[in-house]
Structures are given as C-alpha cells and as structure tokens.
C-alpha cells in the first residue's frame, strides 16, 4: 500500500479547494489559529475534546535517571508534561474498517 503524507500545507490547500468562496489567505490563517489555540489550551493543561475525532490530555512523567543510549552516560530527566491523544470512537472505526 502506498502511503501518502498529508502536511499542514496540503491540508490548507485542500481546505481552500473545498471552500473556494472564502478568502484564501484567511483560510491559511484560520488553520494557524486553530492549532495555536489547541496548543494554548494544552499549555493551560486543559483537556481538548473533539467529538468523533478524539481527546487530547496532558500526562505527567515523573523525573527519572535515564541513559544516553549511545554513550551510556547517565542523564537526569526532569519531571515533565507530555500530550496524550485518545482516538475517538468514530475515527477509530474509520481507521480500522477500510482495508
């Protein structure tokens, strides 16, 4: 199966084709605002719920001592926050069904 990669720019182009009557520049800007506002929400540790798509939440990772896999040197990893995505039911079924 040939896998295509859809980038942020491809997404904007597709959106501009779909919504031809809208100012094209503003569509690109709207996409930026969308993802920026999601990043801001995650920074506030707010949960993002997109029905049919999925939820983004923040998980805390405890600090631990890790190792540089190349040099073997010990490194201290501080406690940190990582984003976590749980796929929504509709999207999970969409991804799994089409073979």
């Amino acid at each position, binding site marked *: *199966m040939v*896998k*295509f*990669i*859809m*980038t*942020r720019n491809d*997404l904007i182009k*597709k*959106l501009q084709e*779909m*919504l031809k009557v*809208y*100012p094209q520049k*503003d*569509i690109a*800007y*709207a*996409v930026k*605002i*969308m*993802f920026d*506002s*999601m*990043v801001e*929400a*995650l*920074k506030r540790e*707010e*949960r*993002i*719920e*997109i*029905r*049919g*798509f*999925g939820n983004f939440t*923040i998980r805390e990772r405890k600090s631990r001592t890790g190792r540089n896999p190349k040099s073997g040197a010990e490194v201290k990893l501080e406690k*940190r*926050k*990582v*984003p*976590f*995505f749980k*796929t929504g039911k*509709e*999207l*999970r079924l*969409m*991804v*799994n*069904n*089409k073979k």
Partner: protein
Amino acid sequence: MTKIDIIQNVYEKLGFSKKESSDIVESVFDIIKDSLAQGDKVKISGFGNFVVKEKRARRGRNPQTGQEISITARRVLTFKSSQVLRKALNG
C-alpha cells in the same frame, strides 16, 4: 476545550462569520479523518503527527476473567506530539 471553543477563537480573530468559522473547523477535522481512514499519515508542524499502524492478530486475555481470547489484526491510530509542542508545555 471543545470544538465550539476552537470555532469561537477563529471567529474572534478573523473576519469570518460564525457559520464560516464553523465550516472551516469542521472541514479541517473531516479532511484529517478522511486521510487517516485511507491510511495516510498526517503531519501538522508545530503540533504533531498522526500515523495509522497495522497491528497483527494476537492471543489476548480478558483481564477480569483470565479467559483467553483471540484479538484480530487491526489498524490503530497513534499520535506523536511535535518537539515544538512538548517544549512549549515544559517551557
């Protein structure tokens, strides 16, 4: 934060109407969903990558009863956050 809040953000910062803002936001998620349903990768710079992975069939166990069950081969969606996003969260 829900889709409504994202639409509100787009509405407040651009000259689009509520309806247009809603169309844009809904379309973005629809486009991403359709691409993933086809097995494509979706890379949103500054946010993260959505990748569909093939999982092989395996023997599993019901954790409650301990009964063995067979898990069929399936495709699952994974999200890897971008380094930019992870840095922003820990800055």
